[in-house]
């Protein structure tokens, strides 16, 4: 196998001017999140010249987990990581207030709004752009939480090599589940793909690619009841939804790929959400609270794509700048 070197050139050559967030400053706009929506919003705010800060748990959001992207306009093909590096460099060329690594845990909706972070600090701002995107949905079965990081995994591209020669299960028969099964089938001894519905719902090209492997079993109309193990995952229990028959499957790893949920816990009760927990916004990215805007996958806007999130982020930023100028 040739040696792969994923050198991220830009991280060395670009000059970064971002500065730490200031607790005693009242910002014009604070942007929450670090995915395409938030980063696009940051670029727009900085170019408008308003005092801006960005607060995010990580930079890149879901795009980091995407191996190859073929539908972000301007690139016929680009790796997720590479696109994120470009986004980051474009943001950090500005003297933007910047906090990476901590989550926002709550916000207030007064004229001067506060954003509280995990470490207990808070920052003050006139207008907020919420772009906290989506995270992996949990199965919510016994054993899942206890064994997360101990065999229960949510990032197949990162962790597949650790399961070389082992038995693993993938839960979820959509695109991400099938992609995970393919990545794992290349190295693992055996892969069991568990799908709730009566057929795989992923794209045909992916299903065909999965078909080539003879170490993969697909269980349709099955659900996971529990994940067993003391220190590490040892097995899972599944139920056949037609016959109600239960069985135990040996597995040292369980990859959960059953879709995404919006990261809106910290704004519940402040801004209005829809039935899926997404923030309701109008066509100018306004929420029901004056001065709070939202963009990207976290919102009720249909279709969750990078180019859409970036566009919405730009729109939310411009709305927020407008608002700041008027108050």
């Amino acid at each position, binding site marked *: 196998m040739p040696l792969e070197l*994923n050198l991220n050139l830009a991280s060395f050559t670009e000059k970064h001017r971002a500065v730490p967030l200031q607790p005693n400053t009242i910002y014009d706009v604070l942007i929450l999140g670090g995915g395409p929506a938030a980063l696009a919003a940051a670029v727009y705010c900085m170019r408008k010249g308003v005092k801006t800060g960005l607060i995010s748990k990580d930079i890149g959001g879901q795009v980091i987990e995407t191996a190859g992207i073929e539908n972000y306009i301007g690139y016929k093909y680009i790796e997720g*990581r590479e696109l994120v590096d470009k986004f980051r460099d474009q943001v950090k060329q500005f003297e933007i207030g910047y906090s990476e690594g901590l989550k926002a845990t709550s916000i207030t909706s007064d004229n001067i709004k506060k954003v509280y972070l995990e470490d207990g600090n808070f920052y003050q701002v006139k207008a907020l752009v919420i772009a906290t995107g989506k995270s992996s949905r949990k199965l919510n079965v016994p054993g899942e939480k206890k064994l997360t990081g101990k065999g229960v995994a949510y990032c197949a591209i*990162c*962790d597949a090599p650790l399961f070389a020669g082992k038995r693993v299960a993938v839960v979820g028969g959509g695109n991400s589940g099938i992609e995970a099964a393919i990545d794992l089938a290349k190295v693992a001894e055996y892969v069991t793909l568990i799908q709730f519905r009566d057929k795989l719902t992923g794209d045909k090209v992916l299903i065909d690619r999965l078909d080539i492997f003879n170490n993969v079993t697909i269980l349709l109309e099955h659900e996971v009841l529990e994940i067993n193990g003391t220190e590490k995952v040892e097995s899972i229990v599944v139920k056949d939804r037609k016959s109600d028959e239960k069985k135990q499957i040996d597995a040292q790893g369980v990859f959960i790929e059953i879709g995404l949920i919006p990261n809106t816990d910290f704004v519940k009760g402040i801004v209005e959400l829809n039935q899926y927990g997404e923030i309701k916004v109008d066509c100018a990215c306004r929420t029901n609270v004056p001065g709070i805007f939202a963009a990207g996958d976290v919102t009720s806007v249909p279709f969750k794509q990078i180019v859409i999130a970036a566009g919405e982020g730009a729109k939310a930023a411009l709305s927020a700048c407008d608002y700041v100028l008027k108050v």
Partner: protein
Amino acid sequence: MPLFDEKKKKELGDILKELENDVTIVYFTQEFECNTCKDTKSLLKEIAGLSDKINLDIYDFQKDSEKTKEYGIDKIPAIAILDSKNFDPGIRFYGIPAGYEINSFIKNLLEVSGKREALPENIKKRIDSIKKDIHIQVFVTLVCPYCPSAVMTAHRLALESDKIKADMVESSTFTHLALKYSVTGVPKIIINEKHDLVGAQPIDKFLDVIEKI
């Protein structure tokens, strides 16, 4: 066959022009080279060839037992990075720094050479008040895009404090260690054998754990 084509060479060479002072890469392999030892050696040779400021010392894990002991090396391939005064800040790479880890490695060369951004005052203070010996191991895979950030943070801590040593450990090369520390998700950070963190944690999360030890 060279690992870097002319374009990559030029790019890397330009990055390495930023080295402020000399650095020395100390590499441990052995006569009967381990699986990835040969590739590691070629990689390091090519990198060292790109800058006058990089020296490369290669030792045999078995034969040069004194050096092995001096640097506390217990497995190969192993790499340490020394500064211009040949001081060893306690940075180790166990396993080839290829894939995404090339980024940690290049960054560490720059940092050890003196080219690094200042840490916030409060973080610096917290690091300076560490009194106990701390050993951080960051388990990675080469295909994990989140991992370099954890490695760079651990190595930066080592660079800032005489009390801290930090290793990158490539999980597929050292499967027995991955097994021992129950590594089933990367990056996984083990501090002083017993304490662990999962995921690319920021520097203050490292310090939170270290301060409790």
